[in-house]
């Protein structure tokens, strides 16, 4: 069990704000975010790096927060779904809603964060490859790919057309 001696003080930039906490050596980044900082937008679907629901950006690089120790992020920058500063993330949010790229919404935070890290000129193949570590059981991914494209400003601008019989 945790003893004071086994904890370490770390300083992390979370969504633009400095956070100073003491964490146990075995605390994962996702536990730090969810349990200590109450940032529950980052989800745990498997806890072992198989589903991608806990994807966050570590210095702009997507990582699985369930596989990163909190002590590893000392002095670094974390971006989660709660980050309201980023214009590109905001475009992704709007595009996800418009394209119907979310249903149950559990994979959505990780999906949006992973999409934020894609190259701006990613084509469909690159988008799919970049999101291959993020499972979605509801949408079949098609709408997610459309949403990512749309957020780039390269997708269909017109609203989804109604298909008629």
């Amino acid at each position, binding site marked *: 069990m945790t003893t004071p001696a086994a904890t370490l003080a770390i300083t992390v930039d979370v969504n633009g704000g400095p956070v100073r906490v003491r964490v146990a050596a075995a605390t994962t980044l996702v536990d730090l975010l969810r349990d200590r900082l*109450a940032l529950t937008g980052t989800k745990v679907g498997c806890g072992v790096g198989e589903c991608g629901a806990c994807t966050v950006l570590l210095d702009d690089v997507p990582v699985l927060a369930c596989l990163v120790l909190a002590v590893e992020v000392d002095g670094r920058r974390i971006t989660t*779904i709660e980050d309201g500063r980023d214009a590109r993330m905001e475009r992704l949010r709007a595009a996800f809603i418009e394209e119907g790229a979310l249903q149950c919404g559990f994979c959505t935070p990780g999906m*949006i964060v992973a999409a934020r890290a894609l190259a701006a000129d990613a084509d469909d193949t690159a988008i799919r490859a970049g999101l291959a570590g993020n499972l979605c059981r509801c*949408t*079949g*991914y*098609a709408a997610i790919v459309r949403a990512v494209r749309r957020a780039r400003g390269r997708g269909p601008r017109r609203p989804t057309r109604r*298909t008629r*019989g």
Partner: protein
Amino acid sequence: MAEMRKKLRTVGRALARVDGDAKVRGTAIFPEDRALPPGTLHAATVRAPIAAARILRVDVAPALATKGVVRVLTAADVRGTNRFGLKERDQPVLASDRIRGASDVIALVVATSAAAARAAARRVRLDLAVAPLLEDPERACDPDAPVIHPERAAVGAHPNVVATATVRRGDVAAARKRAAVVIEGVYTTRWVEHAFLAPEAGLAVPEPDGGLTLYVATQWPETDLRQAAAALGEPLARLRLVQQAIGGAFGGREDVSLQILLLLAARATGRPVRMVWDRAESIRGHGKRHPFRIRHTLAADARGRFTAAVIDVLADAGCYASTSRIVIANAVAQACGPYAVPAVDLSGQAVYTNNPVTGAFRGFGVNQVCFAMEQQVSKVAAALGLDPATVRARNFVRPGGRLATGLRVDACAGLPRTLTRAMRRARRRPLPRATAEWVYGRGIASASKNVGYSFGVDDHATARVTLSADGATVFVGAAEVGQGVTTVLTQIAAETLGLPPARIRVVSDDTATVPEAGSTSASRQTFVAGNAVRLACARVRRKLTTRAARAPLPRAGLSVTATFHAPRTQPLTAADARRHSYAYTWCTCVADVAVDRATGVVRVLRVVEAVDAGRVVNPTLLRGQVEGGVVMGQGYALLERLDVRSGMPTTRGLDGCVLPTAVDAVPMIEAIAIEERALAGPFGARGVGEITMIPVAPAITAAIHAAIGVWVDDLPATPARILAGLATQQCASARQTPGNAERTNVRARRSTGATSPRAKPVTKPRSMLRRSGVTP
């Protein structure tokens, strides 16, 4: 109805989903996101280490002695019946005398931290006597088979039979004799895991008034509580369920999982209790899709019109009944799909084994029988040298005609249009030419799915509409499972009240304040809850107009409740199966695949799916159901597995389930809506949750056959099975004439008719597969 003729403002629009903003910002609260009240305890289960055993002794002392442990609960602590289950209450909350399968929980540890609870759970000592294991459903009714539920011995039949279903109609023997072709086949399907992204989690909180509040994500709040009340001996009125955001369901949250355990622990300790399952426990803790073995005989005349079908289904129900009784009835009722077959002998049986529990999963027994039927239909077309689309169109039930069970269907004018529209769209893009590596094929399959409970169950929902100064609040207990029912009901309410959707608020999340709408399952909420909302809103409107004529009244505070009862149905019985369902949806799926002959790998390049689910309330949501259903169907057809050894799931994580990723998923999915607005659905809408997945697997296996000439009759169609099929084909062609190579499981019958195409070597069916690449 008048409202159908006039122009609609909100219904039919791609309204943004009402829960979208919270979900893209990470502020939607799933059960595990809920802030914990002070003093919250954490629970962990002690699960069965083997699938069949007698429990001799449970020693909780070492666990109790663990630091942080508050209570260790066993069956002795359960004050009610200690039994739950959706249709038959045969599952113990905590097992006391015997272990029947992997899902059994023997003890529940409650501690001050989750880590302490888990550590202590490992210290509970079980003294078990290994019991004989029943793994093979084919052997479940042997005289010497171990009996899974001995208390059922008096029920009649074999005690391991959960349920049977039968439909006999017409003269099967005579019809078979007249047939030009009789195809026989045996089809098998395996367990599938729902793999919803959020494992089960919840929080139970004791209230000052003696009640208990449960914060979970479920498909059927009131039934969870009813089962809990009986199992725990709690008055139902003291239990309240507050629905949280749900991380996927697909049928896997229709059964109780951790609800009763949480309530038990909160009552026993008097403190809030939280439990979050990891993925391995989630896989053990909820039911799977039923593995089926289907023996199938389909007879047709020379023009490909079906004359008879004999279908026998065996389903592995696992160790508890769950919804197996209805699943097997549904499988039998839908065994012949959307076709009119004049003579049938349909039978089904679900049996207990020590395997994982099987229950509801998107399609509810229809996916399996549709796979078998559609393979058979494709084989009939191949044997007769007919176009598979033509054979389907010739056999579709017509308005006023009868399905194989004898059920009269009026609202099926959209069915043939699903086929013509899907084919027309598919043909716009020809298949690529075969390369040294890849060969291509196009396959087609059609499907039907009943909407609503069916089989005599009272299918109803209640909605209450309350007006306020700035709009209306609709209270209706239809669980949002991600499919978008809250948005659909918002649109129906806005349309009926004549208000903008922004002024409607739909509240569905609290059993204390919201009237019941039944389960979110069977593609029923748009139809049933939608009608309840429409009814309540229409009454509000009528009241407003009549009152407005007299004097201007404050609208705020006006509240109207209405209940909608779906048309009555009857149980499926051999004698009278004429009214087992009240509404149907129809679908045709065309799949283009590429097969690598060297490795057996199949890639699905494109799927076109045309659905007739009535009027489309929200095109974005409908498209989402199609795209999600297609990829789930692709996983079912080619990839997904749940491995079980000695009754225990050996698949412990999502990787082992082999779910499609963004890279595997069909890259091109085209959805077509055929909006045949018959029936009493709200504004002519019916429901679309399940149908979109059902025809995908047989369309893919038909496409595989078109590409390489191999019928894969066992799902999933793995590379190993495809290579085995190719190897068999090579052996066969070495021995036989090339034309007969692929006919190993096709038995052509001598026809009594004058023009018999029976012994004709299989030629490429005409129009559809014209561009299907190489001949085997």
